[in-house]
């Protein structure tokens, strides 16, 4: 069953190196209807450590969704995506690519690596709000997410 059904907040992992974008997404999610628990990591290596609960991340919850930027330090978004989708434990978690890129190659590569959707960050704040609301509506209200097996 979905997290939302038993009143627990949706756990979102945001992988984003631009603090401005992180804060913007935090602010926008504050206005969201669905209760959410946003966790942020700033690079690709930390993202995988978080997901595999390694090191300082050993007590973190398992995310219901991953918001992934493509331009990341240490390990690129595409590499992180490939690792997630190759991992039996992680591959059910929906990955939303949220990036400034409008590049066809980036888009095709992301879907080839089984990204669940690809969104270009809009220039305008209102459009950005709409995008986050659309993610929220679609993924948390319309779509049934896989049961979260080992959530704490």
């Amino acid at each position, binding site marked *: 069953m979905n997290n939302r059904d038993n009143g627990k907040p949706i756990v979102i992992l945001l992988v984003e190196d631009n603090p401005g974008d992180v804060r*913007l997404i935090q602010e926008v999610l504050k206005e969201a209807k669905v209760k959410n628990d946003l966790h942020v990591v700033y690079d690709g290596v930390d993202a995988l450590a978080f997901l595999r609960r390694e090191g300082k991340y050993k007590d973190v919850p398992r995310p219901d969704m991953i918001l992934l930027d493509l331009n990341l330090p240490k390990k690129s978004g595409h590499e992180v995506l490939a690792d997630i989708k190759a991992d039996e434990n992680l591959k059910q978690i929906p990955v939303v690519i949220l990036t400034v890129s409008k590049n066809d190659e980036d888009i095709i590569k992301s879907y080839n690596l089984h990204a669940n959707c690809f969104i270009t960050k809009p220039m305008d704040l209102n459009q950005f709000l709409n995008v986050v609301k659309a993610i929220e509506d679609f993924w948390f209200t319309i779509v049934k997410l896989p049961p979260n097996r080992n959530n704490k």
Partner: protein
Amino acid sequence: MISNILFMVSIGLQLTAAIYALLLIRITGRKLAWILISTALFLMAWRRIVSFISILTTGKHVSLDIPEVIALIISILMLLGVLLIRDYFRSINLADARRKKAEEEIKRTVAELKRSNEELQQFAYIASHDLQEPLRMIASYLQLIERRYRGKLDKDADEFITFAVDGANRLQDMIMGLLAYSRVETRGKPFEDVNAAEILGNAISNLKIIIEENGAVITAGSLPVIRGDENQLIQLFQNLIANAIKFKSEKPPYIHISAERKDAEWLFSVKDNGIGIAQEYKERIFNIFQRLHGREYPGVGIGLSICRRIVEKHGGKIYFESEIGKGTIFYFTIPIKENGKT
């Protein structure tokens, strides 16, 4: 006595010729070596060769009684001939080397131009693309401040926020404009045959909302099939029609598009009944970010620059005729290409 002296001189000259020939071999290289050596040998031995041939052919020794003076002249002429041949070959080699050098120079210049042109295009694209990231931050946070705090601060603060948001939005529009402008080159597709009537149809459907809002009427004569980049041609029509609507007079906009064949090109015209443009702006209006109006008309002044770039990329020209208060006709040409040629 005299003939003896002449004979000695002749021998001397022949020897000199042989020495020169050896020297020339050093200078000219292997190609001419055999010619020069055999000539020198011939100069020294021609008398004996002639008598040898005469014995072979007639069976008796014929003494060639050619005066030494003539022998000398023949020797000198032959030497001169050799020198002339050598010079001829040398000049050919020189001309060849010069031509090759010039060709290489041209090749280098063309490559250099191509590279710097590509670099410029890349620069424009990267600059406008990468500039968007920090600008997105400025614009987003200004909008967030506006959204959260409008009316909660004093009147001055609201006004300042309005100016800052407006500035960020305009900068954003300009960068987007530059990006669109640079994309005419970087994102161009190979030319193909496209129906101008369909192109116009696409442009009109993209402008559906502003056409309806302004009650604009758009008509067209019969339009030809032309060779070009479909998306760019749609954008060209779209920009010209959008401008005609934006700069409308009090009357509802009426826009007519037509095309006629003029020699080896199609002359398209987009005629409106708008406010018109003064002739003095006939060049300036196509420059990037050049505008003839203030804030009463939105826009950053890139639309017609993009039009000109698209038309020029298709090998045509764009210009206008206008009468203030009556309307404007924008003309552009698209060359007619024979089948198979691009």
